[in-house]
Each structure stands twice: as structure tokens, then as C-alpha cells.
């Protein structure tokens, strides 16, 4: 019997939600690491019992936790993230040089094949990896030293590396995204990187078509079609069919193309999901109606999904790592809100149910499909 395990990071701890394949009745475990910010939890595709969690606090700094039993018990592992060499400076909000300083881990991405190998996207933007189950961390400095790093500037949430996508067909290829530098790709396992932002247009930067400086909020990829990428930018939903070498806009008939998360259906590479947010000034759904939008055409034509979602007086946000899909036959779609709700649609978005409704603000949602 298949089952799912949903890993939820919040401002005040982590929660683990489990259900059988029907996804109707849920067990809720948590809070784990209560009182700490948990930016992200992610399970290993190679060993679902191996889960990594980023636990942080303004008082006590960064901790990385590891579970080897599916989240029942946890062990603190290594938390030393040291940039390689002299990290130099990036640009501060006021345009002055600012020293590169490690602040927290935003995103953990375990290897597709090795449970002990995991990548960490951090603030200030950098990509680290561990080959020993999180005990020690080494930077992949080629990204930061790619040439434009001194011009990177933080977004409102900090200069975070928030997206790490591993290409299942090309182990040396990794995509990452940074707010507010843009998207980058390596084809040699992280030694060298190139910006992949051609086609992006951001009118809030001096050169709207600059090679770097775009506020990319999230990128998504279907594993069966890794050269096709979908991006939710600060404004604009974008698509690339050449591994990020060029992008074109697919916002189409969305009511607003501002938002944070974007996801791809597990079995339909042209079916994608976004949650439009009113604007960068007002981080809540338009008209107080919480609507997921689905495109079955890879963008441009979108339909609102509302059944089971609040359609009045809803003013929550859905953050960039807060949407996920499972891979059961009927693809489940999940998202969490800053109001503490976690929603599931067991039928690809047609109908939605609330799993929990009063958690702390949700920062991230991931799901493991277990057999």
C-alpha cells in the first residue's frame, strides 16, 4: 500500500504529516525542533528514511539535523559552512560592497543516488555539499566566483540560494537560483557555472535584460524532461526549453504573474501550478481568494482551482518552497501558507482539503511518496 509523508518547515518548528494513498486521513507529528525556524526538510530519493532538516535561530545560529528513520529520531550533524578562500564582497542594498557572511541554510537537496550526499543552498548565496551525511560541508566555490558575484544584491528576504535542481539524466548538471541574482547552471558537477537568464525582463533593475540581477523566486523541472524549466520570477512566469539558455514568458491569462512557488505535475510534464499573489507590495491573493492556477499547456492558458480553498477574506502568502507534488497514480499537490494551513489535492488540483490549519507560518513543504 502506498503512502505519503509530507515534510513541513515552519517559523516555529517542523511537522511531519503522514497518510495512506487515499490522502484523506492524516497523522500529524510535531513540532520537531519546536521554537526554531525550520526553513527546509527534504528526504533522500535513494533512501526515504534519510531526511535532512535545516534548523536555525537568530539566537543560536544554524543547525543541520539528520534522521535515519523517517523523522522519528534526529541527530544534529555538521553546521560549519565556511566559504572557500577569501569570500570578498557582494553588493548591499545601498549599492556599497558588503562582506559575504553565512547566515542560514535555505534549501537542502539530497543526491538522487547517494543518501550521504546532500547539497545546501545558503544565505549569503553559496552552494555547499556534504558527502558524509551532513557531518562536514564543502563549498562549491565556482558559483560564487563565477565572475558576477561582487554585483549580486540581496532580495527583501536576504541573498539566498533557494533552488537546487539535479538533472536525473545528466549527473553533472545542476540548476540553482538566487534572489536577487538569477538562475545559474553547471554542466561539470559544480566546478564552473554560467548565468542562464537570457529572456528575463525585470523592470525593477537598471538594465531590465541584464545577465544577472533578476529576482528569481523558484524554478521547477519535470524529471522526464529536464531541459524544460519553469520559473516563477518576482513578476512573470517563464519557460525554457533549452536548459535555461533562453526563456520566454508564459504568464498568459493569469490574473497576476507575481508569486513565489511553481510546480510540475508528476506525470504530465506540461501541467504546471502557480499561486498568483496580488503584487510585490501586497503579498496576498487577489480579492482575498486563494486560487491555485493550473496550466495543462505548459503555460499561457491557465485555469483557477478553487474547490475547497477559501474564496473570501484570505490574505495569506505561499512562500517559494511551500508547494510540492507526490508521484502517486493520481498526482497529489500540496502547499502551505503563512497562515499555517497545509492543503492537499489528491486529484491534481481539482479538489482541495485542509490537512492542518493552525500551524506556525509555513516556510516549506516537501512530500515523499512511499511504497
Amino acid at each position: 500500500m502506498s503512502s505519503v509523508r509530507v515534510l513541513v518547515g515552519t517559523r516555529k518548528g517542523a511537522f511531519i504529516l503522514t497518510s495512506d494513498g487515499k490522502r484523506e486521513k492524516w497523522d500529524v507529528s510535531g513540532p520537531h525542533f519546536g521554537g526554531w525556524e525550520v526553513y527546509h526538510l527534504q528526504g533522500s530519493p535513494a533512501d526515504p528514511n534519510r531526511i535532512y532538516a535545516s534548523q536555525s535561530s537568530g539566537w543560536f545560529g544554524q543547525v543541520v539535523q539528520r534522521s535515519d528513520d523517517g523523522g522519528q529520531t534526529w541527530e544534529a550533524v555538521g553546521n560549519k559552512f565556511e566559504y572557500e578562500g577569501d569570500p570578498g564582497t557582494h553588493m548591499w542594498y545601498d549599492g556599497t560592497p558588503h562582506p559575504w557572511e553565512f547566515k542560514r541554510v535555505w534549501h537542502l537537496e539530497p543526491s538522487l543516488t547517494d543518501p550521504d550526499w546532500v547539497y545546501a543552498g545558503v544565505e549569503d548565496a553559496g552552494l555547499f555539499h556534504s558527502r558524509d551525511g551532513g557531518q562536514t560541508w564543502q563549498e562549491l566555490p565556482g558559483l560564487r566566483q563565477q565572475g558576477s558575484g561582487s554585483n549580486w544584491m540581496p532580495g527583501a528576504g536576504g541573498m539566498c540560494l533557494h533552488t537546487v535542481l539535479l538533472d536525473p539524466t545528466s549527473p553533472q548538471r545542476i540548476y540553482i537560483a538566487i534572489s536577487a541574482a538569477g538562475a545559474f547552471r553547471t554542466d561539470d558537477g559544480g566546478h564552473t557555472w554560467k548565468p542562464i537568464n537570457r529572456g528575463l525582463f525585470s523592470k525593477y533593475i537598471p538594465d531590465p535584460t541584464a545577465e544577472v540581477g533578476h529576482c528569481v523566486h523558484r524554478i521547477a523541472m519535470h524529471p522526464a524532461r529536464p531541459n524544460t524549466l519553469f520559473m516563477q520570477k518576482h513578476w512573470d512566469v517563464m519557460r525554457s526549453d533549452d536548459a535555461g539558455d533562453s526563456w520566454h514568458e508564459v504568464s498568459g491569462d493569469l490574473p497576476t504573474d507575481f508569486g513565489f512557488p511553481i510546480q510540475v505535475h508528476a506525470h504530465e510534464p506540461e501541467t504546471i501550478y502557480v499561486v498568483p499573489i496580488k503584487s510585490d507590495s501586497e503579498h496576498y491573493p487577489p480579492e482575498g481568494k486563494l486560487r491555485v492556477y493550473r496550466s495543462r499547456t505548459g503555460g499561457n492558458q491557465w485555469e483557477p482551482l478553487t474547490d475547497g480553498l477559501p474564496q473570501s477574506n484570505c490574505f495569506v502568502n505561499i512562500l517559494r518552497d511551500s508547494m510540492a507534488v507526490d508521484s502517486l497514480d493520481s498526482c497529489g499537490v500540496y502547499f502551505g501558507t503563512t497562515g499555517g494551513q497545509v492543503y492537499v489535492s489528491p486529484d491534481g488540483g481539482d479538489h482541495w482539503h485542509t490537512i492542518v490549519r493552525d500551524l506556525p507560518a509555513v516556510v516549506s513543504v516537501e512530500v515523499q511518496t512511499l511504497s
Partner: protein
Amino acid sequence: MIRVELPYHLRVLGKITGDVELAIDAPVTLGKVVEALEQSYPPLRGTIGDLETGQRRPLIRFFACQEDWSFANFDAPLPAAVASGQEPLLIIGAIAGG
């Protein structure tokens, strides 16, 4: 034995259930206490002193014998009453935020 009182979150992180007592050779300093804590309770590495700079994390405070030692040098000897175990060293999470 040096007695140390830790904030709730660090006791949970370190899976500490009883008193925290550390054997430290004289002279007893803040730096030695932090080092001994991290050796005895490895999950606490980097939560009191910054791993990169070795300095006190900004929202950590040290109190001893009703005095604020937060801005003392890590090499400065702590009061005799702390070194003897008569008084605890208090490691506090600063009152800030929600």
C-alpha cells in the same frame, strides 16, 4: 566542577536532562567553558560562539555573580566563585523577538 545554566533551546538541542557540570583546569575562562560545553555536547557546536569568528553570538549573554560578562574577553578568568563551582555561569538567550 564548573556549573553552567543553559537556555531551554540549547538544553533540548544537546539532549541535556540534568545539571551541566564541567571539569575545567584553572584558569577558568569563558573560552574554556564554551569549548568544554561543545566537547561534552557536540550538538551545541557553534550555537554559543560563532564557528567562523569564535566570538560570542550577538544574542547570547553571559552572567556570573550578578555581573554581565557578555563583553568580557574569552581569555579573561571568570570569578573565583564560578571557578570553584559555588556559583553557576549563566548562558542566556537575550530577550528579543517573538
